[in-house]
């Protein structure tokens, strides 16, 4: 009874899932399984290795469960052995302490190797000279600065394919996480520090990226396209941005940093040292015990709010959510 029901259930569920996969179309939406970059590809390899290692144990256990449940069901005509006192067998118990230990040992070794290999701050091997892109997560948008090209974009990022991209990541808002699944795994963007993430696209294409760590009201709008193009197209695009787009000023940045959502934008120039200023804005206190502001090379206006010790610190405009009325913001 139970077995038949179980099979029926499994069949129903798997056909349902299969159907919807077909309906929702196209396996190419499974971005994690369809990597277009060296990092993502190795991560997929690792997923498959660990999945297979697990299945070695899981599949027999699932089969065993159904077989045992069926064979030893309580029916008067059941001829199978019944040993109510049987409760211990050293041999058997050694076996099933042993199997998971061996599997975990193998998995641990593989994991350790891949962890060193895929350490996100490690530069990627390539003939091409890497391009640096500085990423800042804001409330609720992404700012990309190109220190080499002297341009900036918001909510989209472009880079040449087959060229290593060194992302430097920070945040001028609550922590987020920077994720372009088809190129490789994510890394947190945190204020007061510059994280490193090295990725490279194998082929030109548009890859969906998003913020993966919840950061407040309009977090869901923090997705962007990452366009990998040919080197020539990239150079052309840089020239175009330089000639046609407005410059990004410090004032302009402060407006960007204020909470809100916006469409794509690009800027023909960036204020000198902006990225370092964003990072340093919050990093001073970590090493200097909190109140020594001298480490800030050039404190941004917002950083002085740290000195305000009143019961309700008066947040600088940049961190004040629009509309303080709690009835609108907090239900």
């Amino acid at each position: 009874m139970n077995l038949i029901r179980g099979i029926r259930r499994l069949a129903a569920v798997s056909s349902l899932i299969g159907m919807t996969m077909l309906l929702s179309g196209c396996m190419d939406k499974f971005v994690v399984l369809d990597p277009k970059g060296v990092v993502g590809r190795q991560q997929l390899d690792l997923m498959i290795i660990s999945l297979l290692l697990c299945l070695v144990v899981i599949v027999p256990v699932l089969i065993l469960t159904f077989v045992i449940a069926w064979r030893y069901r309580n029916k008067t005509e059941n001829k199978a052995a019944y040993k109510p006192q049987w409760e211990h067998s050293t041999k058997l118990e050694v076996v099933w302490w042993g199997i998971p230990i061996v599997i975990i040992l193998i998995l641990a070794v593989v994991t350790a190797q891949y962890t060193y290999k895929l350490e996100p701050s490690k530069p990627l091997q390539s003939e091409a000279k890497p391009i640096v892109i500085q990423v800042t997560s804001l409330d609720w948008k992404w700012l990309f600065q190109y220190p080499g090209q002297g341009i900036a974009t918001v909510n989209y990022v472009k880079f040449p394919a087959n060229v290593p991209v060194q992302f430097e990541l920070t945040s001028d808002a609550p922590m987020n996480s920077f994720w372009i699944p088809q190129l490789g795994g994510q890394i947190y963007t945190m204020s007061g520090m510059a994280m490193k993430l090295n990725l490279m696209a194998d082929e030109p294409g548009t890859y969906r990226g998003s913020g993966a760590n919840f950061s407040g009201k309009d977090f869901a709008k923090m997705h962007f396209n990452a366009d990998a193009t040919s080197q020539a197209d990239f150079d052309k695009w840089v020239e175009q941005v330089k000639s046609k787009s407005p410059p990004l000023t410090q004032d302009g940045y402060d407006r960007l940093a204020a909470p809100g959502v916006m469409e794509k934008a690009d800027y023909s120039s960036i204020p000198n040292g902006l990225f370092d200023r964003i990072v340093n804005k919050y990093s001073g206190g970590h090493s200097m015990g909190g109140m020594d502001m001298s480490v800030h090379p050039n404190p941004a206006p917002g950083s002085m709010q740290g000195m305000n010790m009143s019961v309700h610190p008066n947040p600088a405009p940049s961190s004040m959510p629009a509309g303080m009325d709690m009835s609108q913001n907090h239900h």
Partner: protein
Amino acid sequence: MWEKIQQFASGFFVTGDPLIYGADVSIVLTMIAVVSALTYFKKWTWLWKEWLTTVDHKRIGIMYVIASLLMLFRGGVDALLMRTQLAVPNNDFLSPSHYNAIFTTHGVIMILFMAMPLMFGLFNLVVPLQIGARDVAYPFLNSLSFWLFFWGAMLFNMSFVIGGSPDAGWLSYPPLSEVSHSPGVGQDFYIWGIQISGIGSLMTGINFVVTILKMRAPGMKMMKMPIFTWSVLSSSLTILLAFPILTVTLALLFIDRYLGAHFFTLTAGGNPMMYINLIWMWGHPEVYIVVLPAFGVFSEVVATFSRKRLFGYASTVFALMSISVFSFFTWAHHFFTMGSGADVNIFFAISTMLIAIPTGVKVFNWLFTMYRGRISFQGPMLWMMGFIPCFVVGGMTGLLLSVAPADFQFHNSYFLIAHFHQVLIGGVAFGYFSGLYYWWPKVFGFKLNEKIGKWAFWLWNIGFYVCFMPQYALGLMGMTRRVNTYSWDTGWWGLNLVSTIGGFLMGIGFLFQVWQILHSVKFMERASGDPWGGRTLEWSIPSPAPVYNFASLPTVDEKDPWWEEKERRERGEPAWTLPPLEPIHMPKNSGIPIIMAFCFFLTGFGFVFHWLWIAIPGLVGVAGCMLAHSFNYNTDYYIPVDEIKRTEAAARGAV
């Protein structure tokens, strides 16, 4: 004047959403109905004397179960609202802030106000009966724990209609949860609701460690204890070490918010990453705190319904205890992507994988308990059978997540959501349901309808797979958690719709369980003291257990004492010699716990709104209650032998 009141009210009460007005009306109507019913049937004194002031572990257990089922209802409604919002792309059924509030309260309620109290309910209902104790070690403290949980939960839930719900995620990561980004009172409700119930959880942990270590029946050595009791011990020890971390972490966040300190702020040297480490140092053991007792339940259920001894008792005990130790060394696997470097990630990846070993061993032990048994698939065992495949697969995806470099692709995606729901629903919820069905006749003295129970089980089980299997796929399609909507071009629509259907199937399953209980109450089918062919001490006494539990206790020097005794009786050689009846020493009821916990509630409420004129009297009340209890020497009484004889005769007669 009027304008001032209006202005205050529009900030004090949550306004602007028809869903919430609807809830307001239903809350007020329910309260009026309850109060009038109690008044009409003249039940106020009964309620106060028999329930609100009780120190009887069985009644406290029942109150825990009722409260947690109510919280399951609320957390479930939250879940269905979220699934409705996600069923189609670009949906604006819930605004972003409303959605954020709902996933926050769903998480907090399901873990802290549903799973924890349901677990404590089972501790209370079962442990003293299993080890042959008259009550827990500290009955007064037990009642206080319950009321602290209850008022903490009330404070947290109140934020839904008063002041505004927290909306920074169930673990409330700063700086989002700091005043700078969450200036409203929602986060303060979060802090105080959890702090107050957290004190209760810690005290329950202490209570059960002492109860299990000191109050076992004569002859019951540690290695003869029922396995559920072992799981409660491992869970309670984990509570002792983990909950203080939570209390300190939230206290620091409170100091940040209330006094303007900078432990976790963005500015002035605050370190939000410290909070994330601290909260997971509690948060990860917390997961094992709730799942270990579920393992205990399954170990009892599988032996009883296979009519066979539990296979590998010693290695199961070792597995339980080693998991509670290992659980403290895995916290950083919740943020491999924080950039701690390869060495740190490898340490936490491997420490996480190690937990799979004892967990896997337990699965084999359960399977080989069934092997060469005689398995009957009644209610509790059905949930066990649903649990094994579900938990095995959920455990496997957990192992995949522990592979640090691969986790960079799984983290914060729906793959992760699917994984932890699979182990929390398939493991914890199925486990507690199994336990509830198993011990229900013992607690209430009547059986639950099997047929409706089967419907509930299949709806839950099928609903679970329909809801969460698509979510694994969605994770691989790049869908991140906590997004309130998505666009058509993502290709996420089909699977989200399927997932929503599954969610509603589980909701219908819950309704079947409610119907099952109501139906069984109406057509009450009396249960004997031992309706399942039980193995441990609790089945040797009448159902429901008399107030003193055991009239007198045999010497217990076997693992399944009641089963062995039944076998001997069948062979005509009973071995139990019960000592003669003596007056039984019992604790007296007390109204102090509920009043003291209410004073805590007032304190929390006062601090939430920065109203010291409520907070300070609340604290004074807490101190006053402690003082009053310290000078109360009238805390116990004896049940005379005559009364015991009468109770026993009536109970045995009824069977």
